[in-house]
């Protein structure tokens, strides 16, 4: 992506805040691992490597990586990031969340049709009055193929029950 990081490192003195946040997240994962495996019983097995040993190694490594990340953050070794637009991300995440929440009650077609429409909206197609019905019909066809013919267990809702 950017092989000329070293040039910028001399200009950029301030630590990279995002990198520090990543380091903190890594350390937090390590802490969670330490905490959780400490309650495990080292069962009297015949291997000296017990259920908690490997997780502990991983946690130590994560701490090491967190420290390394902090060092790079201060040296400004992290690559430049492109500006992100968060609007589209919100649309798509909303679509996935809607699908997750609606799946069991509204059934596969309605839930996934909404995901389809909101994803398209994330990419600029905002005519939801049109894309939602299109998505639902498309998903219903897919449901008929996969659940009807192939016996895949895709949750059925009011729409699907018309065909059962």
């Amino acid at each position: 992506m950017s092989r000329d990081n070293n040039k910028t490192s001399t200009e950029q003195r301030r630590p990279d805040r995002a990198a520090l946040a990543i380091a903190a997240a890594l350390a937090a994962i390590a802490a969670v691992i330490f905490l959780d495996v400490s309650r495990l019983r080292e069962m009297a097995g015949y291997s000296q490597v017990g259920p908690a040993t490997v997780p502990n190694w991983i946690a130590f490594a994560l701490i090491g990586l967190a420290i390394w990340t902090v060092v790079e953050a201060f040296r400004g070794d992290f690559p430049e990031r492109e500006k992100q637009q968060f609007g589209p991300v919100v649309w798509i995440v909303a679509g996935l969340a809607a699908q997750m929440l609606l799946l069991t009650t509204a059934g596969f077609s309605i839930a996934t049709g909404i995901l389809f429409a909101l994803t398209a909206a994330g990419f600029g197609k905002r005519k939801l009055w049109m894309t939602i019905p299109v998505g639902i019909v498309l998903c219903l066809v897919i449901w008929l193929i996969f659940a009807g013919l192939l016996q895949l267990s895709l949750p059925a809702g009011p729409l699907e029950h018309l065909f059962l």
Partner: protein
Amino acid sequence: MATFEFLLQGLLAAAQPLNLLYALIGVTLGTAVGVLPGIGPALTVALLLPVTYRLDPTGSLIMFAGIYYGGMYGGSTTSILLNTPGESSSIVTALEGNKMARAGRGGPALATAAIGSFVAGLIATLLLAFIAPYIVKLALVFGPREYFALMVLAFVTVSSAFGDSTLRGLTSLFIGLAFSVVGIDQLTGQNRLSFGIPDLLDGIEVTTMAVAMFAIGETLFIAAQGDKGPDKVEAVRGSIWMSAQDWARSWKAWLRGTLIGFPIGAMPAGGAEIGTFLSYATEKRLTRYPEEFGNGAIEGVAGPEAANNASAAGTLVPLLTLGLPTTATAAIMLAGFQQYGLQPGPLLFATNPQLVWGLIASLLIANLMLLVLNLPLVGLWVKLLTIPKPWLYAGILLFATLGTIGANPSVFELGMLLTFGLLGYVMRVFGYPIAPVVVGLILGPLAEQQLRRSLAISQGDVTTLVQSPIAAVLLVLAALALIVPLILRARGRGEVLSQMAASED
């Protein structure tokens, strides 16, 4: 020689027009279902097996072989075109394949995958037919300590897929390893990092992670770039077929991939994805175009795809000779065989030669049908990329979630899909490679369990790890793979190595 006669008989039976049609239907259905991210060959075969029950034994065996090969090939298509590997064994294909597709070389990438799969399938099926009994003896020598050594070798070699920063590559790997300890510890039955959530007791599903990190992470990342990028990817630049150079660079990779994949597939705990990792690393070491790795090197598609197919044929070695189902796919195939009256086991070749050779002949025919179906379709597949972004990505998410729901219709699983999708997005933004997370998730538990098993068997004697010659050799190889590049780098030739790998995106 009786073997040849049986094989010829089988081929003749399989080559009947009606049976060829069954093979074609099987391949088509298998590809159609296998294309879904999250639905790998195992689930494809499980779902479609009942379709074959209605036919006569020969016809159903042939259709079944077609479904099996189709299901396997379907995964590579989406990996290459859409960067959404649906199963663990096509993750490596996405690394180079998608870069090729982005550069307008999706045609050659798909072609080398299809032909490589065919070549590997052909060679591996013949190997299966003629040397299965010997291979299986070798495979049984592998015990926990040998597997542990193999996993160490795999860990060292996959670091070549880490991208341009050692720190970020290692961080990705260890995030994957951290996720890999979630769930019930298989050796003591205690639950780790599951926080009392029953859905976490079985650990994090590799396919869920792969689909989330690749398909959803990628979609979010592309969307967040806004209108900067072009609305469509340029689908074809240059020829849609493989050029003379493509052929020249592919054929050796196919053969090497086959040689790596087949024995690893034959090992009861080898796993198809390990072969693809090792093949990728090998190609990267041997290539004359190191600068292309990470930007769409054709060897990086040809080798792993061949390894994947060869190892699938390899899994049939323990299945047919010993009745050992060593993968989920094989376990389902075993159930299928029983339906045809086949009882896989050590006596199978002796008691039921017609059916075994019929199956092997069916695999050969299905393999051919796969090529027949897919080569003409390459042009059509590539057109997928010309679908305008909103519909393309809406469709990707539709099918990605369909695959996940089909495998496990649970709200929690969809929640994980969303969470890991966001993680994949954030990692892309900060230039962390994605593949090592999934690699860690796959290799972590394998390495840990094999280590603990070998120590338990030896009652805590650590020297057991190097006492077997095979394990010792593998560990030495791993040490060399780790040390040699360091020496090279120290001697100032490291530039090539660091440039070889580019970041995920």
